[in-house]
């Protein structure tokens, strides 16, 4: 499939997926990437810092997530831990319920489309 379609599909949902991951537990950049890759790589393709970080900045700017710094013993530097805010939680639940309606709606269109007809 043309990778542009995949990009488009991913664009809207990745934000929701990230919010979900952060809502589950406080987490940091590398862990987010790893989790995305462990459970989503087959469909979503490999998650990249280049995609994830910019979205995290936006979520933070919109006050849907917040972060705190913690010293990291392993690398001598610091790690930024993200957690969801109340506003983020409310937005996420709105997103999820919209997403459910959305997929039902899209599925209806897809199931009403006769592929053999289209192919001819």
């Amino acid at each position, binding site marked *: 499939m043309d990778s542009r379609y995949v990009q488009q599909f991913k664009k809207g949902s990745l934000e929701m997926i990230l919010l979900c991951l952060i809502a589950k537990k406080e987490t940091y950049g590398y862990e987010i990437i790893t989790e995305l890759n462990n459970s989503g790589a087959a469909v979503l393709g490999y998650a990249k810092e280049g995609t994830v*970080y910019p979205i995290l900045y936006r979520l933070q700017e919109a006050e849907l997530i917040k972060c705190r710094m913690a010293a990291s013993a392993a690398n001598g530097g610091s790690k930024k831990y993200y957690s969801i805010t109340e506003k983020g939680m409310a937005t996420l639940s709105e997103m999820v319920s919209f997403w459910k309606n959305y997929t039902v709606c899209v599925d209806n269109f897809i199931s009403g489309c006769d592929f053999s007809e289209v192919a001819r």
Partner: protein
Amino acid sequence: MKQDYIRQVKKALIVSGKKKSEIVRDLQEAFASALEHGETEQQVIERLGSPNHFADSIHEQLGINYLEKKKRKKRMDVAIALMVMVISFLTGILIRIFKGSKDVIGQGDALTSIQISGTAIDMSIPFLLLGCVSLIVAVILIVRYIRHPKN
């Protein structure tokens, strides 16, 4: 390699200084975490994408109309180059005008036979040179601005 990458991202970013240092810190963390998990800097760089692309996705996500900003910055550069050019030429020309003719000294009404010898630098030359350089820079910037319709 990592420092080079971070430096290029820094250069490409058009966000506030505070945001910039935050992004640089995060990049350092990204490299450190990956290294901790046995990855190489090269692998992280591949996932980050080119410095320009990474910076652009941040701009896009933050809703910064970076094209407009870039455009404005380019116009600003042209304006500065033109201004430097005008000021330099004016200064250079004024110095030339007020230098007086060669053999006139002080308020003398007529020519004297007194010669002033010395190796004083003609101050108008550096100004005129600077004017020429900024003219060239301005022309280059304008051509570049016009050539990239995307900008």
